[in-house]
């Protein structure tokens, strides 16, 4: 624990003014090489740390420092870790989940916001931040009438200096809007293209109105991607027709949808970028992840029985604090056995958008190496 804080709380009664000064001078939670200390101030009957790390209890109680309104909890945390959390504050019959009032570092996702704990040595990647020097790409929205899913909307990301006399690689994203909102996709693409780490490429951003139904190994969605969306994009922008320049990507169930589409339509996507895929399967017995996962398990069991060659080069990543780490680790040798080019990366992170953001550079540059060595502008 922080030495200064330890001295403060060792003295009774607690010097509130000194504590105020300490908190003003330090970022919380307090992070050091060995671990992390969470702090909360306020009157409450109980305070819990609610965190999303597989392997740790979902709720851990903070202890109140006697004679004060300060609550604290410390545990070991490996360097480089990052995870998201909330506090559960219990006051009488009231039970409230809140972000950490003293931690300004928050991560947004479709369900709201979480506080972020950045372990010792973790730094948000600078290539994900907006860079004024990087030429900016643009978005172009369009609608299509799908034979499989009805009317759909999608967005094209066009790289800076887009020219119709050039043919581009294509990235097909599931949950595209969330990738832009929560994983800074536009800054990442702008920066990596500007730095020549990936070639100028076009991305088509799709979203689903019902991802729990459409992203779980749903044939009609795979057919929509390949038979409706891809031709619609090709009709709008010049694409390189080689499957090696076509990638499907997604996170969580979006990873399942990507793998499923590539498996159902082999030869279409030469590249796959799968982040924390919800690749639930059973070797024997019942699925224990709930009814939403029934179709996922059916697909994954079929896939595991006959993986074929969904793509020639595949990037897989997963956070080791995720419950899905087992499923993702299990996928890799299966793909390697098919003699596919596979890169697998783990991070000390959870099932969240900042984890997926942080892996984008490694994934995209592996799947689409840029002209870094040849272009000097």
């Amino acid at each position, binding site marked *: 624990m922080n030495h200064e804080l330890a001295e403060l709380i060792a003295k009774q009664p607690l010097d509130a003014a000194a504590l105020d000064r300490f908190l003003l001078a330090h970022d919380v939670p307090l992070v050091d090489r060995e671990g992390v200390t969470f702090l909360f101030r306020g009157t409450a009957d109980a305070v819990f740390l609610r965190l999303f790390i597989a392997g740790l209890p979902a709720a851990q109680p903070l202890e109140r420092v006697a004679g004060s309104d300060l609550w604290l909890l410390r545990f070991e945390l490996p360097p480089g870790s990052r995870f998201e959390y909330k506090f559960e504050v219990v006051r009488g019959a009231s039970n409230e989940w809140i972000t950490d009032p003293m931690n300004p570092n928050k991560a947004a996702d479709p369900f709201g916001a979480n506080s972020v704990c950045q372990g010792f040595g973790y730094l948000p990647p600078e290539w994900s931040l907006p860079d004024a*020097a990087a030429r900016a790409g643009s978005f172009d929205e369009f609608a299509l009438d799908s034979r499989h899913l009805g009317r759909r909307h999608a967005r094209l990301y066009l790289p800076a*200096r887009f*020219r119709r*006399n*050039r043919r581009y690689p294509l990235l097909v994203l599931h949950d595209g809007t969330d990738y832009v909102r929560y994983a800074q996709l536009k800054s990442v693409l702008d920066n990596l293209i500007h730095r020549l*780490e990936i070639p100028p490429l076009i991305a088509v951003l799709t979203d689903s109105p019902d991802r729990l139904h459409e992203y779980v190994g749903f044939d009609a969605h795979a057919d929509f991607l390949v038979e409706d969306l891809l031709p619609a994009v090709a009709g709008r922008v010049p694409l390189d027709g080689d499957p090696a320049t076509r990638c499907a990507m997604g996170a969580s169930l979006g990873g399942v949808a990507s793998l499923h589409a590539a498996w159902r339509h082999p030869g279409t996507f030469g590249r796959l970028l799968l982040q924390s895929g919800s690749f639930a399967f059973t070797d024997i017995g019942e699925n224990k992840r709930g009814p939403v996962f029934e179709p996922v398990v059916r697909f994954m069991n079929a896939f595991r029985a006959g993986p074929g060659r969904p793509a020639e080069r595949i990037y897989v990543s997963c956070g080791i604090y995720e419950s899905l780490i087992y499923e993702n680790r299990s996928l890799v040798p299966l793909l390697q056995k098919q003699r596919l080019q596979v890169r697998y990366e783990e991070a000390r992170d959870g099932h969240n958008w900042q984890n997926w953001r942080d892996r984008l*550079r*490694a994934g995209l*540059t*592996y799947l689409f*190496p840029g*002209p*870094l*060595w*040849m*272009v*000097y*502008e």
Partner: protein
Amino acid sequence: MRDYAVLGPQYLSPNLRDALAGLGIRGPLVAITAGWQEREGEIDELKAHVELPVRDLGLYARAEQVYADDPPLAAAARERQERLQELQELYRLRLAALMGALAELATRSGASRAVRHARRAALGDVRRLDRQHLAATASEHERFARRWQLATRPSLAAHATALAHAIAGADAVLVAGGHVAVLLNRLRLFGIGELVRGKPLIAWSAGAMALTERVVLFHDRPPQGAAHPELLEAGLGLIRGVVALPHAHARLALEDPARVAELARRFAPAQCLALEHGSLVRWRAGAIAEARDVERLSRAGQPLELAP
């Protein structure tokens, strides 16, 4: 006697106009922007910056036309490209092993005579491999030019005449950056090295690399793969005695003395020049007459200001 100037990147803060003024050039210019590939000829910003008439020579588009008009030449060019790629891959494979040995020796503690000797020998091995690669790629180009009689080939003749006329009417030739291999390929195809003889040349980034004797590809922090600087092939050799390193501060670990020294020694006696935004080196009668905001990599491992 013609003058040359090489500049750093021109994207954010161009200094091309200053370079032209320094060379006393006030007349029309021709530009080579083949390194921009499909964006070739988009020179409105360049024109606005220099405030002089500029005509793009259209080498990238001309090459496309030549290959469309002359399918046997196009097929031969593709085959040559495949052979060059194979040479590059084989060179890279051998280079990785030699650079690995060099790095391993650099970490050996102590400086016994045997270790010092081994380090010198390892560097010598790298330099020898570089020379072999240069010779092998040059041989490919010579064979191709001879076999397909580029100097007199009908599909190229009309372009050569038009290019010679355009260059003759210009006060200076600008060579922009971009894809260095594409640029060099087009410069060679149209014999630009001969056509610009006697003309002042101003080149930046990949353009500067292409005019030197050796084109060195480099990046110390690529997101994937090894980071050994490698030779592509010989440049046109119009500018001698330097290795052009555009964006060196972004691409190279210049804070690492061992890395800087290794690069400087590997390409000695040529001077490795870090070309950044605002950099300018001007040659007159074969000697450096002016240098602004340019660093040379010293054998001692420091980037030092280049002085005329």
